[in-house]
């Protein structure tokens, strides 16, 4: 449990960070909170030549309300999200999800953006981003790109991010209509990765569903956006039957594997149960907002 040797840089500006990354490319690994990277280093599963610690970069630890969206900086930690008054108001599902992340020690140091970039298929934030239709801002020495979350996750621990890029923030669209969300997680022990987790966000238009987002955790090579299930609700009144059908479609979108946490059939069924429960909770919460 002692890492192989690596070089370490702790730049103090974004420009310096980007130039270091340009120079070192694939040999470098960016670290924010370190809660995923450090265990991998200690197990010697990851052996980067260089660790670029961005913890000292200024201006990245804020939650900001911009035009039509919330911008969450790369150094905002899970604990900040769990305690954010702004998010409790505008995206309470994120607060709920933050409290499901690992344990207090990890939440105190780990970051949302770091977790999204780590792209663990069992990571919680990816599904939340997908359910909320979030965007990821990627900066390199040469350019800035804004990537939609549905184009971001490519495979296990694999994203659309390039080696010379740093994700500087995520953007969460602010909904106009009454909306509500829910994050449901099945874990074997507190702090465990999800067996299955489901993020659900619903926006209402009167008694009908205006829009819906459903993200699935730990049931595929990466976090999955259950698009068919989402569409099945569009413009519909969410009756038990409509919800059950959406849950069935979400379960169909899942591609889990058998492992110690359970069989593929089990995980698919938990997706169904959770989407069903999650939709009901999210709709009830949206109605509360309306009331």
């Amino acid at each position, binding site marked *: 449990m002692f890492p192989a040797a690596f070089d370490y840089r702790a730049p103090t500006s974004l420009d310096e960070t980007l130039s270091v990354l340009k120079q070192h490319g694939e040999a470098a690994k960016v670290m924010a909170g370190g809660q995923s990277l450090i265990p991998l280093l200690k197990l010697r599963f990851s052996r980067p030549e260089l660790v670029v610690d961005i913890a000292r970069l200024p201006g990245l630890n804020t939650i900001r309300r911009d035009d039509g969206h919330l911008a969450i900086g790369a150094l905002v930690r899970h604990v900040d999200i769990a305690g954010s008054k702004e998010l409790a108001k505008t995206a309470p599902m994120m607060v709920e999800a933050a409290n499901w992340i690992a344990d207090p020690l990890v939440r105190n140091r780990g970051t949302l953006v770091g977790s999204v970039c780590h792209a663990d298929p069992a990571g919680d934030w990816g599904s939340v981003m997908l359910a909320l239709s979030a965007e990821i801002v990627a900066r390199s020495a040469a350019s800035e790109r804004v990537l939609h979350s549905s184009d971001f996750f490519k495979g296990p621990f694999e994203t659309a991010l390039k080696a010379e890029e740093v994700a500087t923030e995520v953007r969460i669209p602010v909904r106009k209509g009454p909306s509500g969300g829910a994050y449901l997680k099945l874990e074997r*022990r507190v702090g465990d990765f999800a067996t299955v987790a489901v993020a659900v966000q619903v926006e209402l238009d009167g008694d009908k569903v205006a829009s819906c987002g459903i993200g699935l955790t730990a049931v595929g090579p990466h976090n999955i956006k259950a698009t068919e299930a989402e569409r099945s609700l569009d413009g519909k009144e969410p009756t038990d039957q409509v919800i059950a059908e959406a849950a069935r479609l979400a379960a169909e979108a899942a591609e889990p594997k058998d492992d110690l*946490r359970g069989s593929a059939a089990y995980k698919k069924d938990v997706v169904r149960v959770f989407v069903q429960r999650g939709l009901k909770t999210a709709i009830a919460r949206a109605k509360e907002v309306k009331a």
Partner: protein
Amino acid sequence: MATEVHMHGRIGESIKRKEDGRFIRGKGNYLDDIELPGMLHMAILRSPHAHARISSVDTAAASGMPGVIAVVTGELMAQHKLAWMPTLSYDTQAVLATDKVRFQGQEVAAVIAESKYQAEDARDAIMVDYDVLPAVISPQQAKEAGAALIRDDKENQKDNHIYHWEAGDQETTKAAFAKADKVVRLHTFYPRCHPAPLETCGCIADVNGATGKATIYMTSQAPHAIRTVFALVTGLPEQNIRVISPDIGGGFGNKVPVYPGYVVATAASLLIGRPVKWVEDRTENLISTGFARDFHMTGDLAVDKDGKMLALRVHLDSDNGAFFADAQPTKFKAGLFHIVTGSYDIPTAHVTADGYYTNKAPGGVAYRCSFRVTEASYLIERLVTNAAIELGMDQAEFRMKNFIQPEQFPYHSATGWVYDSGDYPKAMNVALEQLGYDELRKDVKARRKKGEVTGIGIASFTEVVGAGHGAEFDILGLRMFDSAELRVHPTGKAILRMGTKSQGQGHETTFAQIVTEELGIPAADVAVEEGDTDTAPYGLGTYASRSTPVAGAATAMVARKLRDKGRKIAAHLLEAAEEDLEWESGRFYVKGSPDKAKTIQEIAFAAYTNIPDGMEAGLEGVHYYDPPNMTYPFGTYAVVIDIDKGTGQVKVRRVVAVDDCGVRINPMIVEGQIHGGLAEGYGIAFMELITFDPEGNCIGSNFIDYLLPTAWETPRFELGETVTPSPHHPLGAKGVGESPTVGSPAAYVNAVMDALAPYGVTNIDMPVTSDKVWAALRAAGVNE
């Protein structure tokens, strides 16, 4: 002169633990806290394969790396006749592999370097060529014709069978079964789990080249026995070996055996002449050190039409891993498993056991259990609940009907045990009342009508702890007595040393309280020291709940010896006849004149300053206690659970645990022990599992895969007690540390089985995970 007597800390008082001050301040002294001048670090290269022939080990690159002092291979160990070592079960175990690797994680080579980083870097540079062989990962595979022969190193070993063992009476059991109205069968697998102490195993070997003295700091629950084993293995004279067990962060049986790392570090220190530290990481601990359970059990219970038990037949296939290294009394190949008739008056029983080699880690230890009692208790308690359900009887009523009755003690069991004392119906009644059983049964009925899945489980376990006596119980011939040495200083303060070794059990408090009770010295004035073989009297160590039954008894006996001497000194000081003195609360007084008295402190001072002519000075003594019998703690645990039909998650609503461990010395420590064991029992029932894929890769090799319960998962515990003293223990105490791990897994699982009984489900093997429960529900057509 009126004498004030301070007696704080007598038996029955919940005084705070004396040792906790240093632990909660971070001032404990654990193995890895110890730094010696010039100390080197060792890293062990382990086999990635479960079964493979080693064709070559190339250490050239590793040897040349920065900071590397030596690379030790099996070949080098063989040159010193140390490539193999004896196990605690009269088998042999490879120290560093020379011919084959026989389990994933087996020790192949070791690097000794200036720093731990350098040691691990060089370890990665050792090149080993393996020819992979088929892996055998279960007793079922081990006994198949044509199964790979694991122990081809042993001359007369033609298959993978290790032992056959029996207890009870085959003929009478057969006859009883022939007359039975009903036979209930349960086949269950108690899976491999691991004690997983928070501090892993390790040692620092410091061999002084000038004096030849080998000082070995070691995370050992049994330092004295280890010293003797070391002397026998290495040939070093025993007076030149000093084993020191510093503070230990949990043992649970994992720190009883001798591990190859200890032997390699010691050999390396001997060859290099500098101290060598070796500390396992978590994965090394989980994949290579003493596991627990891994028993495949089949039980048949014969009953008559009135629900009276007639006979029990049990067969067990034991998976012992690559080397038979179980830590248990020599005579008993399957430990004390034949306590399997439990709390029930079963007229006849027959137990058979077969042990098998597999390509899995060796060293079946009793994880918080007295040598396989846990498996026995689980089998009988699960079987009894299944039988009750099958008979259509209430679980509690069926137990009550078949309990050994209080007047039957001492009770001779069908498998040869003599139970010392017990009142099982009383413990059951206390538990049922505390739970509100009758009301809860109605509530369960009402909830089920509403479609809820809910149940109540009961287990009424009987433990057998406190080994020996020595004629019956030994480890490698060492009789299982234990010892206490008590020295009272002139100022009336004392030091107590024992052959046991606390790993968190609170010995420094509990044993001081025994001195307080017997001698009247306040517990705060009694230092308790264990674990240094140069200073403590010889003993077999702490495991199998034996410290209080054995070393605790030794402590009482040595204190009584000193009290007898104290009486002589008091008589001298008071100018009275010995027989005219009465003892009470730490002082002797003259009968009829309670003011004419001498306290133990005054007597202690006189022992060094004013002794009668002809008496030896001083107030100290030693006692080696060989218990006349085991002690038999017992209790009834009851658990209420609810099942989420959507996910199969089991939520424990209530746990009532009524324990009878005889006289309680420090009730707070006893309750703490029970809380800890109930939490571990919960982990075993629902979470903990070490399993293997078909290639023999160990799954459960870190705390992501091997799930220990946290405070979050652990249910709230409601404790109760009855007190039935042990008739043969000087204090009436029985030992308690393991009762909750022995008794609770069956209670938890029985609750799940009670909930699923309406759906025809009769067994789910542990760990009872949500996916298994979900599968059972869906198979029965239950859905959300």
